[in-house]
C-alpha cells in the first residue's frame, strides 16, 4: 500500500497503474498476447516461414559437353540450394518448368567455353518461373551466386595467368550464411511489440468507456496526465518483458547471434514503445469502442509493422511513394535497429538516428492523445 507521504497526483497515478496491472494479470487474453503470441510468431517466422532457398529443383540444359561445362554442373549439383536435373535438349525440360515441377532452367550454351574465356559477362542463360516472383528471384540470385563462385575459383586456380581482371566476389557481411531467420526473428520482435504497445493499449481505454468505469474515474480529481501515465506505465513494462522473452528466444532457441549490448537493446526498445503506446492511446481516445479500436490498431499498427517495416519486404525495393510512407512508421526504425544490434553490434550511427525518429513520431502521437483525451464526456 502506498504511504501517506506521496503527493496526491503521484498516489493517484500509482493507484491507477496498479489497477491496470491487476487487470492485465487477471485478463488471460493480455497474457496470451504478451507472452504466448510472441512465441507463436517467433516459431512461425523462425522455423515455419523461411525466405531461404533450399533444394530448389532446377533443370540444367547442357549444350556444351566440354570440361568447363561439366565442372559448372558439378558446382550446381554440389550446392545445397539446388536439386538438379540435367538434359541435353531444352525442349525436354521446358514443359516440366511450365508444369511447376522445376523452378528454373540454367542453360549452358554450346559456345559456353568460348564465351567464358572471352570474359563474356553472361555466358549462361537463366530461365525462371515468373508466376512465383520470389522463388524466381532466388533462383536467379543463387544461380548467379553459384556461377560467380565457380568462376572465381576457376580463374583463381588459373591465377598463374597475369590476366588479373578484378573479379567480383560476393561476400555477405553480418549474415554470412544469408540465413533469413537472422533477419526474421528480430523483425518479428518488432511486430510483437507493436501488438502489445498498440493493440493492447488501444483496447484498454475503449474498454473503460464501454464498461462505464471511465465516467466514474473522470468524476474524481484525476487529471488527464495521470490517467495517461497510468495506462502507459504498465504496458511499457509489459512490452519490455515481452522483449526480454523474444530476445532470449532469439538467441537461445533460434541461434541468432546477438552482437550488440543489452543496454542498447533496452534503449532502442524503450524508444520504440513511446510511439507504439502513443498510437494505441490515441486510437482508444478517439474511438471509445473496442471493436473499432482493434480494427484501427490492426490497420495502422500491425499491418504497417509487418509489411512496411522492411522486415519482410525490403524498403529500398519499394516504390517511392510507399517508401516515403515508411519514414513515419516507427517499426521501420525499430526493425533496422534490432537487425543492427543482433547481427552487427552497437552501431550508434545507425541506432541514434533511429531512436531520434521513433521518439519524434512518439511525441507526435502523445501530443494528439493529450489533446484528444477527454477530461469531459461530450
Amino acid at each position, binding site marked *: 500500500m502506498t504511504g501517506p507521504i506521496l503527493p496526491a497526483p503521484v498516489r493517484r497515478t500509482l*493507484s491507477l497503474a496498479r489497477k491496470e496491472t491487476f487487470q492485465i494479470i487477471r485478463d488471460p487474453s493480455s497474457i496470451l498476447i504478451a507472452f504466448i503470441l510472441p512465441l507463436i510468431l517467433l516459431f512461425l517466422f523462425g522455423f515455419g516461414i523461411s525466405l531461404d532457398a533450399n533444394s530448389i529443383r532446377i533443370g540444367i540444359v547442357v549444350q556444351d559437353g566440354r570440361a568447363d561445362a561439366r565442372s559448372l554442373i558439378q558446382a550446381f549439383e554440389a550446392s545445397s540450394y539446388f536439386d538438379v536435373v540435367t538434359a541435353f535438349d531444352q525442349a525436354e525440360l521446358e514443359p516440366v518448368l511450365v508444369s511447376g515441377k522445376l523452378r528454373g532452367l540454367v542453360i549452358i550454351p554450346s559456345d559456353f567455353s568460348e564465351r567464358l574465356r572471352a570474359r563474356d559477362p553472361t555466358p549462361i542463360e537463366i530461365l525462371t518461373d515468373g508466376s512465383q516472383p520470389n522463388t524466381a528471384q532466388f533462383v536467379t540470385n543463387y544461380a548467379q551466386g553459384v556461377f560467380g563462385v565457380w568462376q572465381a575459383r576457376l580463374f583463381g586456380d588459373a591465377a598463374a595467368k597475369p590476366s588479373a581482371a578484378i573479379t567480383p566476389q560476393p561476400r555477405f557481411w553480418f549474415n554470412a550464411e544469408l540465413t533469413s531467420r537472422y533477419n526474421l526473428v528480430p523483425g518479428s520482435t518488432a511486430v510483437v511489440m507493436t501488438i502489445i504497445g498498440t493493440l493492447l493499449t488501444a483496447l484498454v481505454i475503449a474498454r473503460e468507456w464501454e464498461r462505464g*468505469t471511465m465516467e466514474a474515474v473522470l468524476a474524481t480529481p484525476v487529471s488527464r496526465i495521470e490517467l495517461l501515465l497510468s495506462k502507459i506505465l504498465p504496458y511499457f513494462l509489459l512490452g519490455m518483458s515481452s522483449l526480454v522473452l523474444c530476445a532470449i528466444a532469439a538467441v537461445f532457441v533460434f541461434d541468432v547471434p546477438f552482437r550488440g549490448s543489452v543496454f542498447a537493446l533496452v534503449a532502442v526498445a524503450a524508444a520504440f514503445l513511446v510511439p507504439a503506446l502513443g498510437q494505441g492511446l490515441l486510437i482508444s481516445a478517439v474511438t471509445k469502442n473496442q471493436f473499432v479500436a482493434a480494427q484501427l490498431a490492426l490497420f495502422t499498427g500491425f499491418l504497417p509493422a509487418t509489411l512496411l517495416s522492411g522486415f519482410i519486404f525490403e524498403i529500398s525495393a519499394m516504390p517511392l511513394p510507399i517508401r516515403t510512407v515508411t519514414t513515419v512508421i516507427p517499426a521501420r526504425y525499430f526493425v533496422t535497429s534490432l537487425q543492427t544490434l543482433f547481427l552487427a553490434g552497437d552501431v550508434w550511427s545507425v541506432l541514434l538516428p533511429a531512436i531520434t525518429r521513433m521518439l519524434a513520431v512518439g511525441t507526435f502521437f502523445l501530443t494528439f492523445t493529450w489533446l484528444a483525451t477527454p477530461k469531459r464526456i461530450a
Partner: protein
Amino acid sequence: MLDKPIHQSGGQLFVQIREVTKHFSAKGPPALETVSGTIETGKITGLVGPDGAGKTTLIRLLTGLSRPSKGAVLIEGEDAYASQHYLHQMLGYMPQRFGLYEDLSVMENLVLFADLKGLSGPQRDETFSHLLKFTDLARFTERLAGALSGGMKQKLGLACALLTRPRLLLLDEPSVGVDPISRRELWSMVSKLVDKSMAVVWATAYLDEAEKCDKVLLLSDGKLLYSGSPANLTDTMTGRVYLARLPQAKRRETIAPLLADASVADAILHGDAIRLLTQKSADLAHIQGLVDGELVPAAPRFEDAFVDRLGGGPDGRSPLVDAMKTHTDTGEAVVEARGLTKRYGSFAAASNITFSQKRGEILGLLGPNGAGKSTTFKMLCGLTAPSEGEGRVAGYDLRTAAADARGRLGYMAQKFSLYGDISVAQNLSFFAGVYGLGHRRAKERIDAMLEAFDLTAYRGTTAGQLPLGFKQRLALAAALLHEPEVLFLDEPTSGVDPITRREFWSHINALTAKNVAVLVTTHFMEEAEYCDRINLIYRGKTIAEGTPDALKASCAGADKSAVTMEDAFIALVARSEQAEKETAA
C-alpha cells in the same frame, strides 16, 4: 409501500440548473431543452422520466463532465463545467451500471477510488470499515466485483461514491437490474445518509420510486414537465381516481371502451380491477354505465399525474384486431413446461419450472434479473436444451421439433433486436422471409402490420432512427408477421414511458381476444398487474403462482388494500427463504 417524505427539513439551495439546453448533433431534437430547476441539500431529488428523457444527460451536466450547449449548471454558485476540479472534490457519482472494475475485488475497488479521491491513512481505514459495515459487504472484500450479485454491485458502487463524504451524491438509475429487496435496502441506506450538508440526486424510470422522493424533476423528451414535491403533483389528481372491481373474465373487454371514452383520461389493469383516471369534472354516472361492477374511489398515484401531464392514456383501440386471424381455442394447453431444469455445472439457472398456459391467456414470469426467467424462455424457444424436464409449444415437443415450435411462436426480445441500419419495410420483409412467408402473403402481412401499428409513414425510415415507442411497435410487428399462436415477450416495456406502455398493452389485449397466448417475463412489478396469472421466479425456482390479486391477497395482513405487487414479492421471497431454512434444518 408509500413512505412519506422524510426530509422535509434542510433544504439549502445547492445546485441551480439554469435554462439548460444540450444538443449532441446539429440535426435532431436536443437531449435537453431549456430545463431549469434547483437541488437542495437534505433532500433526495428524483430525476424522473422514461428512457431517453434526458436523465443521464442532465446528470452528466451536474458532474461537470459535459458542457451545456446553452444555459449553465451552478453548484454553490460556481459553474459546474468551469470549476470541475473543485466540484470533483465533493462529488460522489455512481454512473449507470455502477462504474465498478469487475476484474478487481471489492477491496481493490475501494482502495482505487480512495486513492483517486485522496483518502488515506487512518481516516481511510475508518471509512472502509464503516462503509463495509453499512453496505454489509465486509464478508466479500476479496471477491471480484464481477462475481457479485446485482444488489451487491449496487451497494459497492454506492460505497465507492460515498468514500469522501460527498456533499453532492449523484446516482444514475441505481436500481436498474436489481431485485426489489435490494432496491428497498438501497433506498433506506440513501435515506439515512441524507442530512443538512448533503444533496442527493436519484435518477429513475420507476414512478413508484419517484413517489418516495422529497422532490422530483420530471422529464419527458428532454423537457421538464414538473418540478416540485411529488405529493403536490399527485394531489392534483385527488377525486379523479377510481378502482372498478369486475369479474376477472371481463376486465380485458371492459378496458378498451373505457380508454376510448372521452370522460376517461386513463385506464389500466390492476389485478382483477381496472384503475381509472377520469377527466376533470367527468360524469361519473356515465362511466358507471361502461363498467359492469362497483366503482370505488382510490388514492391517486404519481403515475396518474404523470400520465395526465402527458395528455392522458391512449384510446385503447388496437387496429391489430383487424390484422390478425383468430386462432381456434381447442381448450388444450398451448405452452407447457414440465420440470424444466437447466444446469450450468453445479449451478442451476432454472430448476423444476412447471406450468401450463391456455390460449388467450397472459402468463407472467416475474422475478429480478438473474432469477432464471431468460433461461426458462430460452428453453421454451428451443434455443437451449433443458438439462431435465420437457417443454411443449403449440403441440410440438421442444426436444424433437424445436424448429416447428419456433414457427408457431413470435418472439420479441428485451433489447431492440431488429436491424438498426436498414429500413422499417426491409426489416419486416427480412422477418417475413425468415418465417417462410410466400411472396404474396409476405406483402399482405407487411402492409397489414404497417397499417395496424401506424408505421406506414415510416416505411422507408432507417429502423435505428425511429423514436423509442415506434421501435417497440416495429419489434412487435416483426414478431406478429406470421400470425403466431404464442407470443413471447422478454421485458417488453422496461424503461418506456407510461403512454407507450399502455399502448403496447392495448395491442396485447387485442391479441388475447384472438386467442393468442402471451408469455411475458418482467422484473417490473407494475407490469405483472397486467397478467392473468403470474409465476414468481426467484433463484431459479418458482416460489409462488396465481393471479396477481391472489398473490397479493396471500400476503395481505389485516389491511388488504395496502399490499402492492412488490410487497407481495418481498413477502413471498422471505417466506420461501424461511421454508428453505426449515428444510435445511
